[in-house]
């Protein structure tokens, strides 16, 4: 599961990284956001969405995306 700060919510970590990259000579970087990766094995992938909504992400402040795996989205 990839969990990101919701669009439109101030993401100070993303801003800090965005400012640090040019200092190292990397130009042309924008829209940096720092999120979270949760990896897991699960027997029933149908549970993943509910897991995200109930625990792994807070839908008020975060968006989530379920990726990869056998039979995953």
């Amino acid at each position: 599961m990839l969990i990101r700060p919701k669009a439109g919510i101030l993401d100070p970590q993303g801003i800090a990284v965005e400012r640090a990259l040019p200092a190292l000579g990397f130009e042309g970087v924008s829209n940096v956001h720092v999120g979270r990766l949760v990896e897991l094995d699960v027997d029933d992938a149908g549970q993943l969405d509910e897991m995200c909504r109930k625990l792994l992400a807070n839908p008020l402040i975060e968006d989530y995306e379920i990726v990869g795996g056998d039979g995953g989205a």
Partner: protein
Amino acid sequence: MKFGVVRFPGSCDDVDAQLAASRVGEAVLLWHADHDLQGVDAVIVPGGFSYGDYLRVGAIARFAPVMEEVVAFAREGGPVLGICNGFQVLCEAGLLPGALLPNVHLRFRCRQVAVEVLNADTTFTRACVVGERLSIPCKHTTGRYYAPDDELDRLEAAGQVVLRYAPGENPNGSVRDIAGVSNDAGNVMGLMPHPEHAVDELVGGSADGLKLFASAAVVHA
């Protein structure tokens, strides 16, 4: 008046909260793994780093066995105060609106802040007057209050924004300078500053924090 202070693994302000509450009543500790509120009249969810703040602040503590009892107690109108990490836990548990995000400057802030009382009709602010300033310490890295704009309008109109940082005092970038909110019934409140650390002029910078504990005792009496 009997207060119960929840102790999670990682709580660190539980004993201060117990000592503060014991100035206005009896105060016991409630163990996170017990389905037992020990017959208390009010619950305090204290500051700290419950469950190591893993995943997201307050996210795991919300599922502690004792929280099932706290949620049921709050829904029946029982007084519940969440301080700092406790505020985060109550938001995650759905007892309070909004969420707490990392401070806008990403720094840990530990200092005395002035907060203004906007609503003196809630369970934990009845000993205050509207417009009164309280001097209370804050100490946190994840204290930036957030709720969507339409929700903020609704909260302000309903008087649920109970405490606001005084002009120039916002330590974390909270939207609309919000320091503390309540549920719509006013029996559940959360705030980022630490009233339990401001109950003695000698070591707390002020004794203003005591008013929140005294408010609950007044209601109970």
